[in-house]
């Protein structure tokens, strides 16, 4: 490999006095002194959340306002820090609008002190019922407060658009005499 000797020029007298450099530095800092500030003043101003952000995991409902989760417990099994705890339950017979839904969780707890925001629950969910959405700040005064229960999870999750309408298709198939 060729060795290139770079000649280092000796400093001029002015450079050795530091003064031109100091003046230049002062000029730069003064420009910043009067320049518009770049700070995002957090509680009042919120950052723009990029697409694909993994925030607090939430449960979502389908466009008909029904729970999408069928308590298959895949997320509970896949969850690396074991933050999710599901108690499976049946759909009560008296709820006509949920008649074709297979099952629903009786209880669904996510312990946010354990959650590592990895997003595996969202990835594994066959019903597209659990999503890591945009909320990034979780705080509470007690450990109990940091556990998100089912109603809280649905409150955070809201309703997302659904491309499949699984239960509507199941209902239509049943009405045509085709049970499967």
């Amino acid at each position, binding site marked *: 490999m060729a060795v290139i000797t770079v000649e280092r020029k000796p400093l001029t007298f002015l450079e050795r006095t530091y003064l031109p450099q100091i003046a230049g*530095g*002062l000029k730069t*800092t003064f420009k910043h*002194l009067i320049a518009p*500030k*770049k*700070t995002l003043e957090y509680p009042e101003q919120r950052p723009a959340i990029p697409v694909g952000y993994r925030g607090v995991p939430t449960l979502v409902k389908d466009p008909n306002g029904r729970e999408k989760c069928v308590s298959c417990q895949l997320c509970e099994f896949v969850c690396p820090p074991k933050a999710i705890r599901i108690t499976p339950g049946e759909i009560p017979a008296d709820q006509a609008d949920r008649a074709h839904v297979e099952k629903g969780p009786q209880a669904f707890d996510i312990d946010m002190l354990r959650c590592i925001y990895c997003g595996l629950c969202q990835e594994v969910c066959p019903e597209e019922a659990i999503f890591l959405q945009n909320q990034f700040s979780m705080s509470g005064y007690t450990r109990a407060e940091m556990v998100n229960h089912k109603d809280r999870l649905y409150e955070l999750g809201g309703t997302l658009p659904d491309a499949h309408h699984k239960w509507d298709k199941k209902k239509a198939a049943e009405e045509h005499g085709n049970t499967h």
Partner: protein
Amino acid sequence: MFDFYFEIPLVIRLILQGLAVIMVIFPIAGACSMAERKIAAWIQDRPGPNRAVVPWVAWIPFIGKFLQRLGVFHVMADGGKMLFKEDSLPGHVNKFYFVLAPIVAMIPALTTVVAVPFGAYFDTAGKLIPLGLAPFDIGMLAVFAVSSLGVYSAILAGWASNSKYPFLGSVRASAQLISYELSMTLAVLPVFLWVNAPGTEGTMGFARVVEFQSQPGFLGGMWFGFLMPISAFIFLVALFAETNRQPFDTVESESDLVGSFHTEYGAFKWGLFFVAEYSHMIVGSGVFMLLFGGGWNPLPWVSLATAVEFLGTFLPFAHAPLFVGILSIAIFMGKVLAMIFFFMWVRWTLPRFRYDQVMKIGWQKLLPLSIANLLFYAIAIALIQK
């Protein structure tokens, strides 16, 4: 109008005046700490501290918000914290000197104010009367003598702390202060050579220096900063070193000395060091402005008398001593605050010199330069004033 004031016994009058000056210096030192934080923030493109607010001030529609954004109430929050937090006394220190050190820091810092005139007015005969706590004739000597006592606080604090970094810091502090004291004194000498022209009454006071900068004519109205730029420059650099400001902040260089001589200090005792540093800066800036920046003259070639004459054309009360006094104090304070802004501006621009560089600049660069400068002006003044 103010005759009653002059009927009060002299001692009480002087105490009142002294208290008044301290009442001004202390809040300014406090405000400086805030200004430091704000300027640091602005230079780094941040808004700086802007949250603390007293509720009943927040209710004032526009001003309340403005004061909050300016961070005014953080000064009180900081001060309150410093006053009321636990004032710890570590077990391994020498108690007596440990407590003595911050007091020794504070006393010279406030004492030097005595010798610095901060304004002037004209008596009925049109004679300029400087305003100051003790308008004696050895102002410059007094400031040099007393302000260098401040180094004892650093030495005492470092020694009494009985731990490694404070000790190293205090050794550095004393070496640095002694090194730059010399160049500073030599840089000031040409000014007093010039002022003490043959045939005039000898003086080391600041008032005469300012009077010299307010004479008519091109050379007379010229501030010494223009007349003796090298002197002004050396004095300024030495002032940065003496007040331990960046780029000569080796004394407090956190990266290698933790907190230097005040590592073991906290709460109010630490606060005293802090206020002492800012008081030194204020007095130092004041001395610089008196010697090289025209003192209370508003602009180069525009003396206070000219300004008052000009204001007199449309302000009927412009010649009143009270107005002139307040005007001159305002001009002088404005200049001092501008200097302090410059201190802060430089602090957030330059990195600190290494300790060996500080010593090299002090002894091998500034000292020869100040001696050469002194010789040049001594010869030039001898030729001009012969």
